[in-house]
Structures are given as C-alpha cells and as structure tokens.
C-alpha cells in the first residue's frame, strides 16, 4: 500500500492528500486504462479504537471486509501520549482472483489525543463519502455522539461489562451490537425448530425460557436472547442460570412445556446439540471473529426492526432482574 503523511490535520488537507494519492497510483500504472487501478467505495467505515487495541488485527479485519464492502476506511486511534492530531492517508489494494486490475480503497489513519476525542465528529463529518452510508464501528466503551457523521453505529455491549449500556442507546439512532450479532447462529437454530408446524403447536404451551450462561452475571447477550424469545413466546417466563462449563457467553437455551422441552446447547468443541420432539441432532457452531460479526452488520446499513424491538425489551429485562 502507498501512504502519505499530512503535516496539518484538516478535512480539506486530508481530502487533498487522498486526491494526490489516486493521481500517484494512476501514474504508477503508466496510465494503462485497461489494467489500471479501480477505486471502489460503497460506504465510509469509521473505526474508533483505544490505544490498547491491536491495530494490526484491526487493519487485517478491515482489509478483509474491504473486499466485500469496499469503503473509505477511517481508523481513529486514541492516544494518551499524543497531544495533537495526526493523520496519514493510504490505499488498500487487492487483485481479485483471475483479474488483472487492482481494486483499491482509501484508508485514513488518525491518531487523536484521548482527552480531545470529543472534537472528532466535526473532523470526521466532512471526510465521509457523500451519498453513501457511513458506519461507525466503536471498539471503545465511550459511545461517542456520531449524529453528525454516522448513519449507523456498531458497538459491542459486552465490552461495557453491564447491561446498563442498553439504556444509553438513543432510540432514534441506528445501532448494531455485536453482542446481538453473536447470537445469530443460536437464533437460527431456534428458528429452525419452529419451521416444523408440529413444533409450532407447542409454542402456546411453553411456560419457561431458561438461558444458561457462563460468568458471574447475566451477559448482555443473555438479555437479548431472553427478550427475543419472549417476543415469540409472550406467556413464558425468562430465567437465567449460570453454567460451569462452556466458553460462550450463552451456553444453552431450553424452552420448557409440560410434557417436555426444546433445547439447544453448546457441547464440546464447536458443536451444538439440538433436542426437539425426542430427536437429537448436532450441528457445527463455530466461534465468530470480528470479521464475521462485522460482515453481518455491514450488510444491514439501515434499521433492523427485530434488533430494535429486542433492544428495548432487553433493557427492561435487565432493569427488572
């Protein structure tokens, strides 16, 4: 990748450097229009990271995401030591298999003093690509006001250590939460159970939703799962209990009715065991990394009505428990 460093950090300065970057890349290719460089952009992706975050790992995740979601990526790193802003621009390029032209996305890396991070939104707003979605991936626990520049903010509420954060999410804004995204495989398995009309008949008779979790308190994902299930089984009571084994935050789900239960639970390794109507099956339940989680969230740039509804209920469940 090619890079340029800007002496003064203003939006105009950064945009000028980006333009110069494309010109220099075109010159490098000798003006070959047929197999030159192709600029691709479908959104602006702003990543807000703490100083302690592994920048290399974030960079790798972003690079992987670019291939399906080519973006202007802006990586903002907060620094305790730095007292002034600094920025550099570069491009991330790859050559799709079988093609002879590179596809390149713009990347801007900004290092901002931790104390002044609240000044970032006015800097970031002019840097977003017009007419395309702008997504903030907030890897911190700071919940910045992204109203001015992001159409959607993605957080990971598990980082906050408490479900209190759910109350702080403004209802009028669009959010994604990786704690919710991690549940997609579980939710898919449960949804699968009730594609069977015979199983659907049991829904009104389910009296309890039991969610097993690891760790001391109920994780946010546990509240999300309880809220989501209760929306489909309103008469059932949600209870959480701690399990000793298992590496996942959520380890098991039981939907109990008088004569039996439906259950999904994580067993050894990366496998889920499903029990329904006396039939036991197993399927893969591989762990999900940041790339996999973000890929799912970036595919939904607008509102997710099911998540929005679940968020509201989960916040209430957390308050009550």
């Amino acid at each position, binding site marked *: 990748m090619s890079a340029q460093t800007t002496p003064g950090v203003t939006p105009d300065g950064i945009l000028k450097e980006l333009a110069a970057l494309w010109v220099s890349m075109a010159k490098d290719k000798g003006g070959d229009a047929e197999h030159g460089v192709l600029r691709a952009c479908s959104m602006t992706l702003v990543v807000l990271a703490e100083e302690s975050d592994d920048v290399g790992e974030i960079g790798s995740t972003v690079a992987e995401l670019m291939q399906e979601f080519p973006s202007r990526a802006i990586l903002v790193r907060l620094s305790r030591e730095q007292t002034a802003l600094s920025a550099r621009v570069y491009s991330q390029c790859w050559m799709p298999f079988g093609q002879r032209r590179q596809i390149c996305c713009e990347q801007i890396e900004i290092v901002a003093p931790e104390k002044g991070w609240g000044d970032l939104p006015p800097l970031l707003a002019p840097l977003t690509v017009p007419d395309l979605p702008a997504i903030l991936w907030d890897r911190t626990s700071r919940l910045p006001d992204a109203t001015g520049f992001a159409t959607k903010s993605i957080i990971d509420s598990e980082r906050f250590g408490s479900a209190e954060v759910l109350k702080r999410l403004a209802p009028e804004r669009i959010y994604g939460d990786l704690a919710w995204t991690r549940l997609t495989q579980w*939710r898919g398995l449960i949804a*699968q159970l009730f594609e069977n009309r015979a*199983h659907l008949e049991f829904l009104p008779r389910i009296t309890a939703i039991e969610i097993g979790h690891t760790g001391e308190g109920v994780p946010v994902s546990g509240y999300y799962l309880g809220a989501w299930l209760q*929306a489909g089984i309103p008469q059932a009571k949600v209870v959480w209990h701690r399990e000793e084994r298992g590496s996942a935050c959520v380890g098991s789900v039981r939907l109990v009715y008088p004569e039996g239960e439906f259950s999904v639970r994580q067993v050894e390794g990366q496998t889920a065991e499903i029990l329904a109507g006396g039939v*036991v099956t197993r399927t893969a339940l591989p762990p999900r990394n940041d790339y996999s989680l973000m890929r799912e969230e970036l595919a*939904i740039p607008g509102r*997710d009505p099911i998540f929005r509804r679940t968020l509201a209920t989960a916040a209430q469940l957390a308050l009550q428990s």
Partner: protein
Amino acid sequence: MVKLMPLENPFQDPLRFERRVPECAVVIFGANGDLTKRKLLPALYRIAYERRLAPGFAVVGISRTEMSDDQFREKMRESVAQFLEDSPFDEDVWNAFAQSLFYVAGDLNDAALYASLSAKLKEIEESRHTGGNVIFYLSMQPSYYAAAAQELGRAGLHRGNGWRRLVVEKPFGHDLASARELSASLHEYFTEPNVYRIDHYLGKETVQNILAFRFGNGIFEPLWNRRYVNHVQITAAESIGVEGRGAYYQEAGALRDMIQNHLLQVMATVAMEPSATFRPDSVRDERSKLLRSIHIMKPDEVAANAVAGQYGPARIGGEDVPGFRQEHGVDPNAQTDTYAAATFYVDNWRWAGVPFYVRSGKRLPKRVSEIAIQFNQAPLSIFGDGAECAPNLLILRIQPDEGISLKFLSKRPGEGMTLRPVSMDFNYGSSFGERSPTPYETLLLDAMLGDATLYQRQDMVEAGWAVVEPIQQAWAGRQFEFPNYAAGSWGPAESDAMLARRGHLWRRP
C-alpha cells in the same frame, strides 16, 4: 375452547439469516449412483453442517443393491468424506446426520418397492415429525423418469399429509414431442407446481444480479430496447473437449446440450419484461413469455441463421489434442455439433429487429460465459473523421469471474481530443471470506423451501424445444463437412460469416 396456534414462525429474521428449511424427507432413487455419492449426500451433509437442516430431516436411499440402513450410512460416510468440497468433515455432525439416513432396496418397476417405501416414509413421519413432506429425487437415467413417477403415483405416494415434490434433471426429452410426452407422464400424478426440473446454468446469484442490475436501477432499463441496442451476443465457451464422455455427448451436441436450455434461459433473463413481483413464478412467467416470443425459424431461414461446427485436432500449448472424432467412444464419422451458433429474433415491440447471437462450443480458446450488449453508435461524431467511434458495450460476465463491465469512450489525458475506450466495472465478484454453496446445495435447499426460481417450468421447456426444433430438423440426417474448426480456435468461419452478413463481428472475450 378455541386453541390458538401461531400460523407463522415468529422467530424468522430475514435480515440476518436465510429462511429455515421445513422438516422433510428426501427420497433418492439411484442412491448407489455417482451423483448421490459425489454431489447429493455431500451437499446435504454440508447443509446440515451449516445449521440449515431441520432436526427431523431424513434421507431414504433407494437402489437395487441389498443393504441395511447401517451399511448405507457407512457407504455414504465414505463418499461424503471423500467428495466434500472446501469443508471440514466433522465426526460429531456426521454421526448425528447419519442417524437421519435410511435405505430401501428394490427394483424401480416392482410395486413391492413402493409399498416398502410407503411404510418407511410413514415410520419416518411419525418418529421424525416430517409432517409428511417428501422430495422424490430421481437420480437416474431420464428414460426411467416416467416409470418411476407413475409407480409413485400408483402407490399413492404423490400425496400425503405434507407436500410431495418430484425433482428431475435434464435432459427433459430430446425434442419437443418427447418433452411433451415426458411431461404428460409426470403430470399424471404430480401437478406442475410440484415438478422441479433441474437445469441450473445460471446460479441464483447470477440471475439475481442480472435482475437487480436491470430492474433495481432506473438508468439502464430505458435503454434496454431496439432503439438503443444494436445486437446482443451470448457466449458459453469451453476450452475442454468431451473429457471421456464422448459416447454421451455424441447423442446430444451443443445445440441440445447448451443452447436449447441454458443459453435460451440466459437470453430470457436478459430480454424479459420486468415482472410484477420477485416471486419465483412471476419471474418465470416473464421468462416463459420471452421464450414464446422468439421467432421460430422457417425451414429456409435455418441455413442463414444457424451454424454447426465440430472441432478437429490441433496443437495447443505444445500438446496435440485430438479432434472430436478421435475422442474415446466417438464414432469416427460422427455428425455431432460440438459447436452451435444461431441468430434469434424476438417478435415483440421491445426487441423487434435486434439480433440475438447465441453460441456455444467445446475446445474453444478459453472458458468464458458472458452476455455482451452492444449499443447503437452515437449518431454523429463531432471529433473529426479519424476519431475513435467504438460503440458502447455492456458486458455481463457469468464465468469465470462474475461481473459487469461498461465500455465507453473517454478523452485521453493531455493535449488534443483523442478518444480511447475505457472499461468501468460495476461488480467485483463474491467475497473471499465465505465459502459459496455448491449448485446442489442451492438446488436442494430451494426444493425444500419450495423456491422454484432456478427450476424450469414445463412451458419454458417446451418453448425452448420449439425454438430449436427447426434447426434440429434441418440438421437431422445432414452430412456436414466436419471437422470445420480447429481445437483452440473460435469456431467455424461460417459462424463469423453469419454475423458479417449483418455487419457484425463476434466479440473475442
């Protein structure tokens, strides 16, 4: 007391996961065959691994060989482990999946087989709660389809508590009359909505990409007609020969094997009218309408509008490659068309007068499938007599790398006004992060979900045969001067001449 039961699954989340598959049993006729071992069972295992199969899902394998359920499971375990593509073989997942595999031995024409099958399905329905949903997959020679469908019907297996679907693979007949005859046999017991004809060439993603491009944007559809389009070229080229399947291919040929079904489907997708909805039957209605609008050649039009070719030996990449007639299992005097090209016209207001050139062949220079839409040139060049005046081209690439390119003229940077063609790509292909499903995974899932988008309807099959019938009749019994193109070339000279007569040239992809 009125018992209230939810009518719909309240846990679906279409934004996050694909629709869950309902419980069903898949009965595979020909369970001991290659297709089952190499494609069907690995695909089903993979779907199970991906958490998309219902817990009560079951497979019933059928063939003449006597074996127990456990023996069948062991055989399938070996096959899946061997033929699984790009996926890990997980023992835990396999062991659970294997419990859903069952086997019934018997002869296709023996009523006793169907009685046993009926008993097995009843048992599975009760123990695994499949709701009586069954797919009958006829993985066998097409000549047995009618017999199998009728025996299923006589045994009452075409109906039950749930849905019953019949899945068959191409070819659907070898001409219009045989296609109609086959259809009549299938329809004796299975209604058309329950007959799924596999003829996948355009993957679902590709079909959807073309439809999204055409009907998701406001700027292209106004140009998509005879006023702006000069002609359309549809190419399906293979660089390989018959690869040991000479005996089969000898009976088929490029016209039957590729143009009658696959390329006419491509043409229908590109040329169809917008459908009212995106539901499978809406889309198929419009594709069928387009196929029925294709001008049926009169006998005296065939010679000028259809070309047959057969590859001869050549030296490619430093190696001698045999001609078709030298391939294993091929008659040295075979009249099979390994290359076919045709000019079609669509008799409707949108496309009247616009030639659709369609070609397919083996042993062409490269493997490529694409649709090239050439637009009319600008009416006047204001840039001088010597100015570049290449027409605009929109290329929809199907394989090897799926994408869309638009070629247009732009000014060369610098002094003067020199125009040069440039290409803008709109689509960058699929993500490298996630594994794409195999065609059989997609097709099996679609059959279970009842999504017929990729499956051919009978009216589409018949329309396809009707279009090529005049060509088949003209070519039948004719002694061609074969071979008429060298392996590794772009086909016979007559094919170039067919376009040249209209002032057109085949694109070199």
